[in-house]
């Protein structure tokens, strides 16, 4: 079985890659930075004694996405699981000053992700097998002033995955939407939080288990389901007054 990691240098994707490789699966690590992608691939190959390759992709080179998936499949065979984990999160305030940043956030996190998922889904539907694991975010559950460009893009991606899941169902293609809470990544490094921060390895364990059980959606860690239930249930007339 072959697993494609898109955004392989993200700690969550990298940990998911190690998890699949520990079960003996071949890995293709893709990242904007080809050298880093290759480093991730060598690391996975050496530690788990599996086949692994690395290469470049760019979420914004839409015209290249189809060819890119072809390249991946010629390197490691048909992609059985694609982990769509790339993303950017620039400062919200700077994005308000400079819409170029906001636009990039939306295009990378949503448009680019959707474009790559389409290229992958098409092939999986033809083969009547496969799984797409999309990393959304708890930030996509409700818009907040502190993070709404990122949140709206992740929320759009979640809705996209929902529709894709509906389309893929009759073709035996799984679409899993993962909504991580606080994970120990650059996004949370140095943050003081009341809610515990979990390691990328723990997240990877849960995600791989959920994918292999055929799940549709998940929060990681699980207790974020309850946190978000409360946050989503606050009436908008009250929510709009909160400084979140």
């Amino acid at each position, binding site marked *: 079985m072959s697993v494609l990691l898109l955004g392989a240098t993200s700690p969550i994707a990298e940990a998911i890659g190690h998890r699949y490789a520990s079960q003996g699966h071949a890995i293709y690590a893709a990242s904007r930075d080809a050298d880093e992608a290759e480093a991730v691939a060598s690391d996975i190959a*050496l530690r788990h004694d599996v086949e692994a390759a690395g290469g470049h992709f760019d979420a914004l080179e839409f015209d290249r996405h189809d060819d890119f998936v072809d390249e991946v499949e010629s390197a490691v065979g048909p992609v059985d699981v694609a982990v769509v984990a790339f993303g950017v999160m620039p400062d919200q305030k700077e994005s308000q000053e400079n819409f170029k940043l906001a636009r990039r956030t939306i295009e990378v996190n949503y448009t680019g992700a959707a474009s790559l998922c389409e290229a992958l889904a098409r092939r999986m539907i033809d083969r009547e097998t496969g799984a797409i694991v999309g990393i959304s975010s708890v930030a996509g559950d409700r818009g907040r002033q502190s993070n709404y460009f990122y949140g709206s893009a992740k929320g759009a991606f979640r809705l996209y995955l929902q529709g894709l899941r509906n389309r893929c169902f009759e073709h035996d293609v799984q679409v899993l939407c993962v909504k991580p809470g606080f994970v120990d990544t650059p996004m949370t490094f140095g943050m003081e939080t009341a809610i515990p921060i979990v390691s990328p390895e723990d997240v990877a364990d849960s995600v791989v288990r959920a994918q292999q059980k055929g799940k549709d959606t998940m929060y990681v860690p699980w207790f974020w389901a309850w946190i978000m239930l409360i946050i989503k249930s606050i009436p908008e007339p009250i929510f709009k007054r909160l400084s979140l």
Partner: protein
Amino acid sequence: MELSGWGRYPVHGARCARPETRGDLQQALAERNGDSILAHAAGRSYGDAALNEDGRAVLTERLDRMLEFDPETGWLRVEAGVTLKEIIDIFVPRGWFPPVVPGTQYVTVGGAVGCNIHGKNHHQVGSFGDHVRRLEMLTASGDIVTCDRDNHPELFWATVGGMGLTGIILSLEVQLEPVAGPAIEMESIRVENLDEFFEVSAESGDFTHTVSWIDCVASGSNLGRGVFMRGRHASEEVEWSPGPMEKLAKTLKSAADGRLFESNWLLNRATMRIGNAAYFHKEPKGKTEQIVHYEPFFFPLDAIDHWNHIYGSRGFLQYQCVVPEREAIREILEEVTATSMASFLSVIKEFGPRTHTGLSFPEPGITLALDFPNYGEPLMELLDRLDAIVATAGGRVYLGKDARLDRQSFRKMYPEWEEWRDVRDEWDPDGVFQSSLGRRLGLVKGS
């Protein structure tokens, strides 16, 4: 963030970044805003070598990818944040072991180069740097430079044992040693005093690895009594029996965590005297042969997580020195046993020939490592007296363990420090890379 070394003394604040990629690392260097910067890896040096008070620290834990391995020759290329434990876990089943390991497997290879660590096999194979052939470094200019024995050799040699002050190591190539499996053939010999230690050490030439635990509370005719351990990697796959710390860890299970025993009072002279005497008398007289796993042989204390916490919140100091002559060891032991302070855990070993210049620690002679609870001022005064003995004898103190050596003593102990600093200054004229230790010892610009 507050950072400390393994001794938990001192504790210094620094602004921290934790890069995921070398691009992030270059960015952290570029955006340091005039502050000095230092790589902080596993935090297993003891004192302030990996601290940069009021400056910046780059946590290298995520720069930990294994890049290339040649199963024909054993050369392994890895990023600097990879730990020896990761290498051991992956490569022992494939028949390879790191060429040199210290008393813990939780150090990173970057730290192993920075401190040019030594192991129980120093007398035969030298130190870690002797088995490294290439370093890839981020230098003060922001450029990535590859150095080895032929290209920029001065940077290579200044970085081996350079305490992280020449730049940040990105990756390195180290030669692993072929082994048959995890087993170690070992002998332990009870030695009744210091003279016996030297006798046994002299007749242990057939063993690749030697070290002796020493009871540093016993005095008079018992001065220097201990348990000499020597061993080698088994030449074929054999069964091993569990070591004493393994058994203890198994009994304690999840309680094998020093944090549960954290106390400023647990280790005092009385308990340390009893502990040391018990360990000595538990060892049968004469020689015991056994086959053990590499963990209890090389890394007995790794069986207890956070064992550094048993010294309490005051922390502890390890004093490791090497002296060329036996007499100085006796003087040091007498000086220590004459005080009311005691070293809980002490080890002694004879080093082999010197293989490096600059700030590298090992030189021919006898090395002694003593662990003291942080008794405060009286301990600092004792250690100053030990420095005087060591410096007069032509010996030196290990910077990887140090938290308090003064500049004058340092300069006596490391006469090549100026040549080393010239190379450092050439690669980092503005003093971008600094540490608390570097400033204390006058190793960096403006200190």
